[in-house]
């Protein structure tokens, strides 16, 4: 008999957008979980004038886990964070990608997915961002 999964999956997502003259902030985050596994990622960025800042993070718990985060670029920044946990055929993973264009816009997108054998994967996508008002 198949075990019963606690399927709380790819639910948590947060995004925001803010506008003000010459500045923009945006971010997104998500969590995928099920059957004792959980994976979360978050990313958020800011730009004002010629400056920009971007922070990413990810965490995973349960089973075998892996997490990775990176930010690249100079004035225009690209970042990504990935977290996943798996145990046998069960897995949960979350992936956030952010693009921070200096003085222009911040866009982040988070995709999450959780899966148990014999069931369809549950997926979610959320985006958050803002463009500097010209």
């Amino acid at each position: 008999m198949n075990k019963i999964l606690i399927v709380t999956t790819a639910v948590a997502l947060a995004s925001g957008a803010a506008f003000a003259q010459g500045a923009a902030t945006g971010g997104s985050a998500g969590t995928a979980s099920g059957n004792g596994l959980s994976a979360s990622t978050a990313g958020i960025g800011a730009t004002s004038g010629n400056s920009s800042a971007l922070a990413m993070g990810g965490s995973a718990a349960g089973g075998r886990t892996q997490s990775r985060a990176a930010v690249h670029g100079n004035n225009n920044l690209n970042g990504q964070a990935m977290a996943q946990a798996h145990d046998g055929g069960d897995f949960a993973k979350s992936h956030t990608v952010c693009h921070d264009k200096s003085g222009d816009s911040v866009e982040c997108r988070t995709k999450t997915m959780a899966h148990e054998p014999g069931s369809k994967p549950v997926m979610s996508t959320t985006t958050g961002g803002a463009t500097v008002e010209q």
Partner: protein
Amino acid sequence: MRNFIPLALLACSLSLPAVAQSSSASVSAGNLRGSVTVGANTPLPPKAEPQRGDDRCDSHGVEVRSADGSSSASASVTTSLGGSAVVAGGGSPGSTTRFVGCEARNIPPDHVPLDGGRNKGEHHE
């Protein structure tokens, strides 16, 4: 000009035993402020008494601030023992990137590379 719209703050509660982890981030640009938070709210399991040489750690964070201070972003993550967590940050040239928590690594402003301290991290369990 449109008024400042606060970033949405959403916290998700998941009742999953043996899972305790969360991710959050906050940001500011000019007079803007915002944050996002997600994760399981199950309390972290009680920690065992620290052992000699015990380097276990469950909280990671990064803070990035631009050279002129007008833009900043921070992210923090936590996970239960045995899980994995990582953060990364970067900014425009001259920015400072400061790590807090488990991997507290300070990058002095005069050592920040021209790319604003871009970095990456990876963790496997």
